[in-house]
């Protein structure tokens, strides 16, 4: 599923790459940026944690890096982008600066930095407005899961359409990505991939995680076919089936008899019944003298 997410087929998605101290998700973030650039899309990067040279070596035309690395809190007189500018009005103004007709992809590196300085409900509100407003096509954000309280991480991930949790893999260069994707209809799909990232920022998926193989073996063992070892025959051959269908059942009438019975002639007898007091016999009160 990682390749589908990289291709970015569904618009309006909000992808969160959740990493931890043991395995960094920045390389995967760079792969996402690369994939978006290869799709001829505009990419806006809000860089809080790393500088522009480190994120993208040479400047690329469609990549707009908003430098929040040098002065994120606005301590100098002329900050380029501060963390307090992470609100809908400022971001909309920022995104309108490019003249590209298609809506851009917004990459946030990282959301943890913003969550340390702006309250989580405000961040969630801004992200929600960004998604609904249509100013951006997709949002990809990096979140350090071990930097925040569980409730904060949970609240932000609850807003996301896909969450990719990266963890270190078995071998040196590998990493394991656990992906949870929520579709608009409420269906949740989970997947696990082992991947490596090459030097040119393409993602190579290794074989699926070994645990999936174990799961597939177990259900097969448990399903025994109860009709397998019987001493009598439960199946019908074709001839036997034809003979069975030809058999006339005792109370199945022919069509003529059916119509005759259905359209009853007017002279048939009718039963007229008028309920009598004697017919109202109560088993538990035969003399009808109980005062209940």
């Amino acid at each position, binding site marked *: 599923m990682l390749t589908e997410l990289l291709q970015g087929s569904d618009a309006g998605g909000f992808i969160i790459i959740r990493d931890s101290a043991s395995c960094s998700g920045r390389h995967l973030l760079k792969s996402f940026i690369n994939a978006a650039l290869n799709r001829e899309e505009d990419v806006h990067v809000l860089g809080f944690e790393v500088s522009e040279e480190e994120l993208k070596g040479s400047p690329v035309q469609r990549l707009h890096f908003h430098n929040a690395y040098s002065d994120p809190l606005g301590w100098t007189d002329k900050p380029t982008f501060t963390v307090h500018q992470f609100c809908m009005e400022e971001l909309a103004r920022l995104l309108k600066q490019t003249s590209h007709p298609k809506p851009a992809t917004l990459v946030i590196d990282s959301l943890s930095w913003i969550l340390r300085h702006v309250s989580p409900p405000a961040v969630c509100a801004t992200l929600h407005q960004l998604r609904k407003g249509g100013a951006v096509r997709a949002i990809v954000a990096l979140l350090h899961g071990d930097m925040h309280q569980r409730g904060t991480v949970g609240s932000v991930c*609850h807003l996301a359409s896909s969450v990719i949790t990266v963890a270190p893999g078995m071998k040196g260069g590998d990493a394991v990505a656990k992906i949870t994707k929520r579709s608009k209809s*409420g269906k949740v799909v989970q997947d696990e991939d082992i991947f490596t990232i090459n030097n040119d920022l393409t993602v190579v998926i290794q074989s699926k995680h070994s645990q999936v193989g174990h799961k597939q073996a177990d259900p097969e063992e448990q399903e025994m076919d109860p009709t397998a070892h019987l001493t009598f025959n439960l199946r019908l051959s074709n001839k036997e089936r034809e003979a069975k269908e030809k058999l006339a059942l005792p109370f199945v009438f022919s069509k003529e008899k*059916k119509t005759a019975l*259905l359209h009853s002639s007017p002279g048939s007898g009718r039963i007229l019944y008028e309920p009598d007091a004697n017919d109202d016999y109560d088993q538990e009160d035969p003399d009808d003298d109980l005062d209940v």
Partner: protein
Amino acid sequence: MAAPVSTVGKPSAERLPLNTTSFQKKTRTKLISIPGTRPSVQNGQLLVSTGVTSLDYLLGGGLAVGTVLLVEEDRYDSYSRMILKYFLAEGVVCRHELFVASAQDNPDDILQELPAPILDDVAIHKPVEQPRLSCEPQDSLDAMKIAWRYQNLPKVQSALASSSRFGHYYDVSKTMEPEIRQAAKCHRFYLTEHPTQSPPTHSTMLESYSALLKSLQEVINSEGFDVAAPMSKSRNILRIGLPSLGSALWGDDLSCHDNPRNGHALATFFYGLRAMLRSSLAVAVVTVPSHLIQDRALMGNITRLCDNAIALESFKGSERETNPLYKDYHGLLHVRQVPHLNCLASKLPDHKDLAFKLKRKQFTIEGRSGRSTCCRRSSERGSGGRWASRWADV
């Protein structure tokens, strides 16, 4: 008292025209006869159906009018949202009025996703079907092979004036048709459309919750759901659906921080909501993302402030997904609170371990009965504890 039955007027006779029988039960008591409700057999409270018949059984027959049902969401909010949709769909089918308030999704989107009712005995605005005459062509006899004597009898009348059945079934794979949905009146509250005023410093409640309560109060007063309102027009029930209350999009940091700054805002909201509902003909179903709320004391507070509370725990993504005991089910259901309305003790459900399963046409809730020895095949497989046969298709 949840729904004072004595003060409301006589049963409206004009609702009964197309009954199949002319039998009318002679009632001395002046019960409110609102379509889609029935009095409880245990304590005479007026009950409405939640849309899920198994859940109605669990709550003691239905949801009492004037109470709040709290549903603690599962991790991805799939099944709790489904219960809310069942609740709203039941309101549409019973011709109740709806009120949907949401911070994340547009209420119109929620209303468009309601499941379609299974239509055998639901009244839609179609004229009564004429019974089939006996002079129909011959090939119609082939329709029934065994029960052909019933061929020419008229079908069961589907056009009841008001749906007299309590609790309907829904087909989850289809959405409700727009004609049925638009017949029901719906009030909406979408938080992004309400401008946020400056927060009052001395209030314990957030302005988003205050705005919601004010909007609810307006609807209840203007549309006549208040019990004290004059009897000029016929009465109806207001069904209130509040998905994902307490999430970060309402401006509440209860689900974000371990020690929230305004931790009692949600509890104050529930207090106000319950007070408002006690004096009106309304029912509320609220879903709260309790898996994000770390402060268990606050969650306990909120649970106590609601009359009914259930929690859903879905197996998706947890290690229980591969447990063979749970392979037929989608999750566990925990009952956190049962209502005690006008009584000292309440009826607890018989089974303590409950599991739910969302099938296409039914949301079933089943309890665990312990090891069963009747079926040899199950003991061969060695699974411990068969899950009991189902309740509440009744």
